[in-house]
């Protein structure tokens, strides 16, 4: 694991595996910002080692500029849950 990033930022890996185990997700998406994408493999390894029935894990091959930028339409492709990193929920306003 990249010790620097893991030591500096809380990736809540236990919360992720707890959510997976509790909800029995079959298919999940890891939605990572550029600064964390290099850890995708490490996160996947942790999930595999700590889940009872490991779901199919997809890594988002696109942007994560914030919670305004979550690919919600991915549900149409059979994803049960998106784990989106680096941001809190976004309060959308209509208009500018």
């Amino acid at each position: 694991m990249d010790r620097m990033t893991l030591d500096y930022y809380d990736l809540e890996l236990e919360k992720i595996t707890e959510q997976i185990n509790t909800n029995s997700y079959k298919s999940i998406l890891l939605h990572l910002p550029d600064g964390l994408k290099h850890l995708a493999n490490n996160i996947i390894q942790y999930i595999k080692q700590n889940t009872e029935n490991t779901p199919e894990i997809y890594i988002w091959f696109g942007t994560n500029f914030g919670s305004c930028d979550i690919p919600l339409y991915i549900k149409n492709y059979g994803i049960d849950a998106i784990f989106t990193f680096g941001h809190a929920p976004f309060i959308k306003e209509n208009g500018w």
Partner: protein
Amino acid sequence: MDVIHIQTRYTKEVIFPKNLINKIKETTKKQGPVVAIYSSIQFLHTLDKLKTLLEKNNIKTITSKPKRAYFISQILGCDAFPESLNFPEKTHINAYLYIGDGNFHPNALLFSQKNSETPVPVITYNPISEEIKTLTIKNIQKNLKKYKSNLAKFITSKNIGIFITTKHGQYQKQIALKLKKELKNKQKTAYLFIGDNFSKQEIENFPFIDVWINTACPRIAYDDIIDIKQPIININDALDTLKNM
């Protein structure tokens, strides 16, 4: 489908240096220190400690919950307009203080002052590098100059491309259609574009467009314009400009 947010909070202890206090006092000395404090989500939990320290050193602090943010004092990149910070009217500050890394969020605070006659500095403290910086409107002068030039081109241009993103939090079709109608009233021709990312490569595929109007993240028309030849402005400025034509 569930969406679970992992905030990736910073886990190391943050100790705010004495130099930060000195920097704030030095920067605001003529007016007396009243600073508005914000941070990215990663460092939000450090602000209570910071606020106590500042007030102990006779530095008045204020903050707000910006319109689209989930937490008080959390700043987003799109907080590039004064009204998005949600301050009560006539709030007076001498400086912003941002805790976090990078210039992306502090630059939002600079862009929010682009029309101000008395912009204030943005002091930043990066807890990772322990670096203190002071940013001023001069740091974005190049962007503002280009933006002003883009606005001028919009006034005289005929073919206007309106970009709508499919990103759910930035999707603004209704206001795009409103602009299209306003453009027609001013004898301009509007073309509606819809896609995920507003990329330089795709812009080059449509050379018949004179000026692009961005309805997605406002930072596209502020930050990215330096490297893009084609004029881009934000939709709010387009609508305001048309009102005055």
